[in-house]
């Protein structure tokens, strides 16, 4: 009997479209039939109301069957159920009044029917898709929920700060207040401990015996795999965290530092701290918003052979390279100044430097990366760059720069990558350079590969062991 009710229930999402369509159509032709041009419609109004009423009744029956599954939010279900029944009642009234030709009553019935259908439909949608589904992707999605940031993973409460956000993101959609698929709720300690229709879901201390974890590691094509196919999946990192949470006892209140941490977990915990995964990218481009650069200047530079474009489609900062310009002129130098605030990356390998170009570059106060390897830059021209305080990458490979010239830039504290291979500066001077640029990884180059006897030997038989 249960399975029969189940089967009938499953037809609800299909049947539900019939009364909506038919009754709306009935209302439409009913209203149109009052116009002289469409008077002939009058004859089919009773029939459409009748069909609509029948489908509404069937829908109500299947809906009642579906509601026994208990997977839905009770409050919304209550509204949906009774409004749905009201639709059926009103449509029967519609049939009745059209037969009796009580035009006045019929008018009121049709108006209220229209309103009730819309409301029922809306609550039905909320039941299946969750609250706020209408605006999803529109206004609602723009309000980005800020994840609580973890400054120190060791101090974080494992469940509240780490596990719950994962479960909220990946599981609440079907297992929380709004829906309880499989009679399971995961939005609270008591619900999690209670489990779902197949019993408890967490065996503390053993992830592999815990239904919650077992479902996650099932083959993604398995029907029982969670989250279901097509929904955002648990990532490898999240999986390891969930496994660790259950294996270490499934506590809801313990802090990370109170629990034993296997070695594999250390990097994962570290990565949870304050966006620590992507700091270097942030440094490459300032976070400050900037106005779009002068288009005429950009066109001008492009025409003169400079490749200059936005660093990304969502940023007004610019990257410029001079691969095909080995010497600049006054026009280029001046145009460069007009877009200087936007330029963050500048590439001028092999450039024949002039003092005017060096001067123009000194205006690029957003500049973070400067590649002038193999260029003719001199110590005096380099002095111009003292102002480039955001610079964190400087490539001087193969230039005539001396130690004295480099030290002039001592104010550039942000430099963290410094390339000075093939210059007169050698790693004898590494101490003083490191002191001048404390954050910098200094690369003196001069790498080589060893000459191994085996490099050029072609084997004819296996090596002797």
């Amino acid at each position, binding site marked *: 009997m249960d399975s029969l009710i189940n089967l009938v229930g499953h037809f609800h999402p299909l049947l539900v479209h019939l009364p909506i369509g038919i009754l709306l159509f009935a209302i439409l032709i009913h209203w149109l039939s009052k116009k002289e041009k469409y008077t002939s419609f009058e004859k089919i109004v009773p029939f459409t109301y009748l069909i609509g009423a029948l489908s509404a009744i069937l829908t109500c029956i299947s809906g009642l069957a579906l509601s026994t599954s208990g997977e839905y939010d009770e409050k919304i279900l209550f509204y949906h159920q009774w409004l749905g029944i009201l639709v059926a009642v009103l449509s029967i009234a519609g049939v009745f009044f059209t037969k009796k030709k009580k035009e006045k009553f019929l008018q009121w019935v049709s108006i209220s029917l229209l309103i009730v259908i819309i409301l029922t439909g809306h609550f039905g949608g909320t039941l299946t898709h969750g609250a706020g589904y209408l605006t999803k992707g529109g206004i609602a999605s723009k309000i980005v929920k800020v994840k609580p940031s973890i400054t120190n993973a060791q101090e974080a409460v494992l469940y509240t700060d780490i596990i719950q956000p994962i479960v909220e993101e990946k599981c609440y959609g079907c297992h929380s207040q709004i829906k309880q698929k499989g009679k399971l709720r995961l939005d609270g300690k008591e619900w999690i401990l209670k489990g779902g229709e197949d019993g408890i879901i967490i065996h503390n201390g053993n992830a592999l015996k815990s239904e919650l974890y077992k479902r996650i590691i099932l083959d993604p094509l398995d029907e029982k795999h969670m989250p279901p196919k097509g929904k955002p999946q648990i990532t490898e990192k999240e999986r390891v965290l969930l496994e660790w949470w259950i294996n270490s006892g499934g506590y809801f209140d313990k802090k990370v530092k109170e629990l034993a941490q296997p070695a594999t977990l250390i990097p994962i915990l570290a990565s949870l701290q304050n966006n620590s995964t992507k700091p270097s990218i942030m440094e490459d481009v300032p976070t400050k918003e900037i106005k779009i650069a002068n288009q005429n200047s950009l066109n001008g530079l492009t025409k003169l052979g400079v490749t200059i474009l936005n660093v990304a489609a969502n940023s007004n900062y610019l990257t410029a390279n001079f691969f095909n310009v080995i010497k600049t002129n006054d026009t280029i130098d001046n145009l460069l100044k007009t877009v200087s605030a936007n330029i963050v990356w500048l590439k001028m390998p092999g450039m024949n430097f002039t003092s005017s170009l060096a001067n123009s570059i000194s205006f690029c106060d957003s500049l973070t990366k400067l590649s002038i390897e193999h260029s003719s830059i001199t110590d005096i021209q380099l002095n111009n760059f003292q102002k480039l305080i955001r610079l964190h990458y400087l490539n001087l490979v193969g230039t005539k720069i001396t130690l004295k010239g480099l030290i002039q830039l001592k104010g550039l504290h942000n430099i963290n990558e410094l*390339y000075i291979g093939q210059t007169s500066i050698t790693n004898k001077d590494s101490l003083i350079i490191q002191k001048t640029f404390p954050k910098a990884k200094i690369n003196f180059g001069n790498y080589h590969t060893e000459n191994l006897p085996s490099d050029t030997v072609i084997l004819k038989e296996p090596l002797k062991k």
Partner: protein
Amino acid sequence: MSKENKKIIKEATIATTEQITRSYFFKECFSGMGAMALGSMLQGCDWLGNKDSFNNFTNTNPLMARAPHFIGKAKSVIYLHMAGAPSQLELFDFKPDLLKLDGQDCPQSLLEGKKFAFIRGVPKMLGPQAVFKQRGQSGAWISDNLPHLATVADEISFLKAVQTDQFNHGPAQLLMHTGSPRLGRPSIGSWVTYGLGSENSNLPGFVVLTSGGNNPDAGKSVWGNGFLPSVYQGVQCRNEGDPVLFLKDPAGIDRDMRKASIDAINEANQLTYNEFKDPEIVARMAQYEMAFKMQISVPDVMNINDEPAYIHEMYGTQPGKASFANNVLLARKLVEKGVRFVQLFDWGWDSHGTDLSNAVDIGLINKCRSVDKPITALLLDLKQRGLLDETLVVWGGEFGRTPMQENRDGKTLPFKGRDHHTEAFTTWMAGGGIKQGSSFGETDEIGYSAISGKVTAYDMQATILNQLGFDHEKLTYNSQGRPFRLTDVQGRVINEIIA
């Protein structure tokens, strides 16, 4: 006049009047306008969910440099493909337990329901045919077959559990590079060029170099443009002698005259384009322009002869000879000049054990010796030039090799070799914002199947695009009525190896 003829004449008159009368004109206008309006309305409706798609093809300058979706760490990619599929079990995936099983029959459980390219019946297990050590601070296992690469282990992120579903070279290579085992999809280099254009307007955005004596089995489709305009296909250079031929103008033709003739040809092409709007005409025009510019840029960039002696020593290059080493050095020169995607294929890694040259304990070692030093030199050289952070180096084959010894047709082969294996193999990435000295994914005790951290070709492609600043789900191109993307409906960025 017969009745019949009258009827025909009447019909003809009606047909002619229909074409010139006012009412006919209006009728046509209405249906035409309706179609136009519908088209624009549907576009506004975002009916393909395609609002964020990235239609990049412009017919004025298809190779113009463009910005990616977001700020990418890598500016260019050097993809080193060892065509034929190198044995992970002799290079990176150390399995001491497999040594213990050496020479024993393969357990039935590993063979049931499985299909192999050549193995028939019950093969014997084959222990690792190389000596392994842990290298660098990361402790990565690298065999003595790659003594140079072992010194730079801490630059590399290994993917130890790569999987594929293709066990033949051609389809597997296509899957790796085009996201589909069948012909017709654009290669990853074409997608990147379509997305980013060419940073250096005097050079193509996507260059292909081959070595090892053969092109890869999948043929030129692995660097083909598929349904993208052909201006985005990989430009293959010759592997011996001058990389590009006919750079000099013929006697009696000077540069101005050459320019004038190309301008004239392109003007004619432009007229045809205006009429037919075929993007292939734009591709043709762009290629004429590019060829003209390359006459100047190529002799400088593609000439490794003038590199200093210490560079030749470092890479082990011998100018003029066809070699993987020369190609690697050329690749570095190209990315240094702003080429976005350099694709290297080295043929001859198919270690079946049918002869000496493909024995895992002889030929494979010789292959290793031909690539070990150049690849190591490439990583070091990019690093000392300050380019490693923005150049993503990818190394891999199209699948892996079996822990069993190949027994082609049920017979014992004269040399030790391994069959094609799809369930687990190793690839690696370095530079371009990838973690240094890390490893992701594990295989079982004998290296037969992946047990954790499984990744696919799609995941690698998604990761490569991500490092260049692309959301792989949004880099799309409309073809045959729907948007296509490199990773089809799959692909996950492998965040575990991203720094």
